[in-house]
Structures are given as C-alpha cells and as structure tokens.
C-alpha cells in the first residue's frame, strides 16, 4: 500500500535533494510551515524578466515534503510566472485528487499523486507549492 506513496523516485529526491540550499541576495525569501507536523520549507528565489531565474529551498520535513520541494525547484527553474502558476495549480489539483496528473507536463512529479490515499500527507506534498504560490503573490 505504501509502495505507491514511497515510490523510488520520491525516496531518491528525499535522500539526494536537488535545489537544496540558499541563494545570495538579492532574493525573495518565503517561509512555509505545516504546524501539525513541524515541516518547514524556506524558499529563496530570484525573478528576472518575468521568469524564475533561480530557486533553492531549505528547512526540514518528512520525505514527502522534502521530495516535493526538491522536484519543484527542478521543475520551475527558468519558468515564467504564468507557467509556474499553471504548474502549481496542476500539481495541487493532482495531489488533492481533483484531477489526474499529466506525465508529459509533470514528469517525475506525478509520483506525488501517491499521497491521495493518505489524506494526512496531502499537506506535506503541497507545502512547497503553496509556499511558492505565496512567494509569487507577494512578489507581484
């Protein structure tokens, strides 16, 4: 049952996170918390010409929240704000079970769909994405 949740790709991102770290200023920093479990994701990002030119995350949390943040930084780097927005919505809808994930558009991220059957874990998977949404909102 938890094979679906703990897919190899997730455990891999958890053990070898991409995009982990901090950026030098100038940067936008946004914190996200999941108070019930203590997960914390802090995003550093830089916007240039309407694109996310660079993005890093740090903080701590469970395998799902960390893998999700890792996948996210990989996926959104270089994207325009509009593209990032669309991706956020797609991922959130997939994770909440409101829509199927499109493997062509999402790549590895479809692995996050496994949380659907673990309602308590949905917030872990969405934390990084909500935090990015918040960062983009306050930056624009």
């Amino acid at each position, binding site marked *: 049952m938890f094979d679906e949740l703990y897919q190899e790709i997730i455990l891999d991102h958890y053990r070898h996170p991409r995009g982990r770290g901090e950026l030098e200023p100038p940067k936008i920093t946004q914190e996200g*918390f999941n*108070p*019930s479990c203590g997960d914390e994701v802090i995003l550093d990002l830089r916007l240039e010409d309407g694109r996310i030119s660079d993005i890093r995350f740090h903080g701590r949390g469970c395998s799902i929240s960390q893998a999700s943040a890792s996948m996210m930084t990989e996926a959104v780097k270089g994207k325009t704000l509009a593209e990032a927005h669309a991706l956020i919505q797609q991922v959130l809808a997939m994770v909440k079970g409101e829509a199927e994930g499109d493997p062509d558009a999402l790549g590895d991220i479809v692995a996050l769909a496994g949380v659907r059957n*673990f*309602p*308590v874990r949905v*917030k872990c998977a969405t934390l990084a994405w909500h935090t990015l949404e918040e960062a983009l909102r306050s930056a624009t």
Partner: protein
Amino acid sequence: MATTTFSIDASEIRRQFPFFQPHPEMRSLIYLDNAATTQKPYSVIEAVSNFWAHHNANVHRGGHGAGAKASELYEAARQRVAQFLNAREPAEIVFTRGTTEAINLVASSWGEAFVKAGDEVIITEMEHHANLLPWMRLAEKQGATLKVWRITDDGRLNLDDLRTLLTERTRLVAVVHISNVLGVVNPVAEICRLAHDAGALCLVDAAQSVAHMPVDVQAIDCDFLMFSGHKAYGPTGIGALYAKRSLLEAMPPYQVGGGIVKTVSWERLVWSEPPAKFEAGTPPIGEAVGLHAALDFIDSIGRATIEAYEHELTRYALERLQEVPGLRLFGPTPDRAGIFAFMLEDIHPHDIATVLDARDIAIRSGLHCAHPLGARLGGSTARASLAVYNDTAHIDALIEGLHEVRKVFGYV
C-alpha cells in the same frame, strides 16, 4: 380558528424527537421554552453518538487516518455552517461555545484592537446580557462611550433614532436580530447599511433567528453574526461566529494555545490563518458534527417553510392570548416572531410558570437575561416561545392554563 389549515404537520415533526415520545418515567411536556433551548432530533443525537463510537480522534494534528477523518468531519461542519449562513467561504466561520463566547471574542479581539478612547459603540435597549456586558466592559476598558439605542413603547427600534446616535466616532452597532423577549424582528439589513454609511461596523446577534427564518449574511451585509447550536436543534457546547475575512485577518487571536500558531520559539511566534487563529485547543469536535446534523434537520424542512408555519402559529397565538383578561403582551403585533413575553394581572410571572408547570406546560419567567429591558418593561415577565414542533393544541393548553392561573390567584 378551526378553519385555518397549517402548512406543517407538527405531530409528524415531533416524531423525529425522542423528547416527545412517551417515556415510562417522564411526564410528557408541552414545551414552550424554545427561546431558552430547543429539543434535539434523533438525527442530531445519533450523529454525535456515531462520531464518538466510530470516528473519534483529535483534529488537525498529523499522524493517522482516524485523525484525518475527524478533521474532515469537523471541517465539513464548518463548510455546512458557511453554506447555511451564505458566507463567502468556510474560513469566515469560527466555532465557539455559543453566542456568548462569540460576542466576547469580538469584543476582546476586535474591540480591544480597534475601539479607542473616545470612540463609540451603540447597542440597543433590548439586548440580551450576552450582547450588553461585553460592550459595557469594553467601553470601560478602552475609555469608549456606550450609547444605548432606546426602544419605542411598542417594542421596536426606530431607525431615525439610530441616525441621531451615529457619529463619526461610532465604531460598531451591535443589535439583536430577534429579541428574546419582545419577539420583534429587527431590520438588520437597514441597520447595517446605516452603520456602514457612518463608517461603523455592524454586529448581529442571531441567537433567536437562525432556526426560525432564513439568515443570509451577504444579504444582511453584517460584519459579525453569531448563533448557538443548542437553540437551533443542536447540542450545547457549540456555536458559530461569522465575520468577514478581512476582519478575521486583522484581529489578534482571542484564546491562545495549541493549533493557533504556525511556529513558536522563545523569540518568535507566527499565528495561523483564520479560522484556526481563533480556535485554540481541542475544539468541540463531536458538537460540530451534531451542529452539522441540526442544520441538515432545519433545511430538511426548509427555513422559509418554518418561518411561514411559525408565523401562522404566531397569529393564532396572538388571537388566543387576547382572550385572557388582564394579560399584557410586550412587543409589536402582528408582525413578530413566536416569542411571547407577558404579564397577567398582578400575578408574578414565577407564579404563572409554576401553575403551568404543574400542568406540564414549560414556559419561562423572569428577566430573560435582559435586565435593562426588564426595567423598561416594569419587571419580570412570563415567556412562551415556539419552535417548529409546536402546534395550536399547545397554544390552546397554554390559554387554558392561564385561565387556571387567574383562578388560583383569585381573579374570577
């Protein structure tokens, strides 16, 4: 009378309530104390029991599926309340113990942050203590002025009087939707409009209205509105505060504890978003589930239908009460809700209630937690109040009982 047909068969509705079923050890009661608290349908009692039996867990805290299910039920109740009141979103609903706590929350959190020395709060002369004492205390604490909007002799509020009271220093008008004594239905949408025109907010105490008529917070355009579950066929221990989201965001927390912070260290503290920010500690989870079922019960009949039926019953009651010599009814007629406070000759209301109680008719007597209004009316009153399960036979029994009261006290 006999020719009136009524839009609801109340005996059908009473069948949904264990309180009205024959019981070996209990006398069966004609229950006319609904403004104090209503009885509970089987559906509510069973929803609560079922929660305790099969879904009980704490909410909002990670760990297991049972907790997720309990959180889901709790949030579904919030969504149900939002829909019931036509709030814009569930986040505008804060669960409280009841109306009293909701008003205390607003007076403490919003009031201490936004009402300054020299500011004014307007309340009416007909307020229940729940919508009176928090504002008296706030005014004293902040050095603000409490202005009292007096009632007319027939128990109404005159909008022109409000126009005179409102100034640029007015921060809030706090008014009851349906008076628990006078039965008057106040024109809250107009009151909110006048308050807003003057730059003030408007709070509506809907304790007596939500179970008896449609209440739409967007149509009223109030800033705060609250009610108690137990007066709306639900359990005690639960009520709801509606507040516009921007207000909830600007307000500091009320009680503090678990669940209302994102992070805390000795140096730093980040509050949760509303509504979590206002729900410190383990909330009344089973009670929220019960409230959900209570609102389902109400809407299974329909609030417009309930309003129409109670209106018919009220007209019947008004006619019959007129037959009792020496009875003085308070509040306007004929347009009013089914709450009848009255005096009878010089008989003390407590004595009226006792004689009726001996005939298995439950009414209430006293000042109904509205002492200043009581002073205006000349003291204690007897009060009968209706709900959807009452019918004309109950009113007939009340009238007969009042004749008996007269007899006992030598009025013949």
